[in-house]
């Protein structure tokens, strides 16, 4: 007799919207950053949007739905290596939410994005464009931030590649479709899974509005002060 499967709602709406918006914005930022010229203004706007979303996600990682909270998916080295061994041995158990390996990758990518967006605020292309906070610090720091923004950009591209390859590997090696649940939020799981506690979307909206307000102050109000 085949075991019963449940449809579990794994990912809440705010987390899913965050994921796909950031994915599009990151690609846009990479392309516009490379082209430069008239696209640099759009590159910066995209960066402000990414900063707003990342700050939201970090807060949601503390007060959001169960599966979005860092405390629920950041596991210690023992769990990490056990999952790594299981995956290689094709005996890994399905995890509701981010697994021990993916979980750390999520945090790593969020921090890379935070560093990239933040350093961009201080960057200067020495042609005609500089970030809104470049005037507030020394030229030496601006130079360092600009170099960091450039090199970290490559690290970010590498991380995105790794992320995409991992998701592709899940499909090709284990017939595990990771894209669908991040889009619909739903996943078919074996009968013993419990529905995680998802928080109301309006709370996320409030946090996002606060984040947007903070970034607006940082890039528009504060530089003029």
């Amino acid at each position, binding site marked *: 007799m085949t075991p019963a499967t449940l449809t579990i709602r794994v990912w809440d709406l705010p987390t899913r919207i965050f994921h796909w918006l950031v994915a599009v914005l990151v690609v846009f930022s990479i392309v516009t950053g490379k082209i*430069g010229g008239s696209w640099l203004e759009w590159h910066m706007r995209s960066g402000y949007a990414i900063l707003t979303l990342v700050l939201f996600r970090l807060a949601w990682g503390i007060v959001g739905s169960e599966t979005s909270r860092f405390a629920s998916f950041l596991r210690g080295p023992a769990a990490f290596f056990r999952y790594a061994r299981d995956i290689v041995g094709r005996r890994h158990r399905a995890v509701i939410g981010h697994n021990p390996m993916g979980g750390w990758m999520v945090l790593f990518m969020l921090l890379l994005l935070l560093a990239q967006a933040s350093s961009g605020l201080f960057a200067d292309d020495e042609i*005609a464009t500089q970030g809104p906070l470049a005037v507030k610090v020394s030229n030496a720091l601006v130079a360092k931030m600009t170099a960091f923004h450039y090199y970290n950009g490559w690290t970010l591209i590498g991380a995105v590649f790794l992320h995409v390859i991992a998701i592709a590997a899940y499909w090709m090696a284990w017939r595990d479709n990771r894209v669908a649940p991040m889009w619909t939020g739903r996943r078919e799981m074996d009968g013993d899974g419990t529905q995680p506690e998802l928080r109301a979307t309006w709370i996320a909206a409030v946090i996002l509005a606060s984040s947007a307000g903070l970034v607006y102050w940082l890039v528009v109000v504060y530089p003029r002060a």
Partner: protein
Amino acid sequence: MKKSALAAFVVLAAAAIPTVAQQMKAENQVKYRRAAYQLMNLNFSNLEAMAENKKPFNKDEAARNAEFVTLLSTVPKGFFGEGTDKDTRAKPEIWKNRADFDARMDKMTNEAAKLPAVVKTGDTAAFRKQVHDVAEACKACHDEYRAKQQ
């Protein structure tokens, strides 16, 4: 002095200026080209601000900025003599691919030269496009021949 001899002298003297610059000690070549680039940055960023509507388009101000950018854009080319990459962000590739470097430099100078005329027309759309074309030309050289940090 005969007129043709005087004309020949003036032409030779003008042609000698870049050569003189390249015989200048390396440290000073770097010093003067940096000065030119920095003042270009000062004037060009004001043009960019107007192009992006961060400040209102002022024809007189823009004309002055454009004139500076055009003139200054002709300076750096003659100040990249041999050995002037020491302690700078100038990559050694400049001297390995000198023809390509010069081509990019010339493109920048040519685009910059179009600025004063565009400003004079008062056509803000054309102005915006030309500012971005110049910025692109600057970037084309930086991306290839300028290190990300010293």
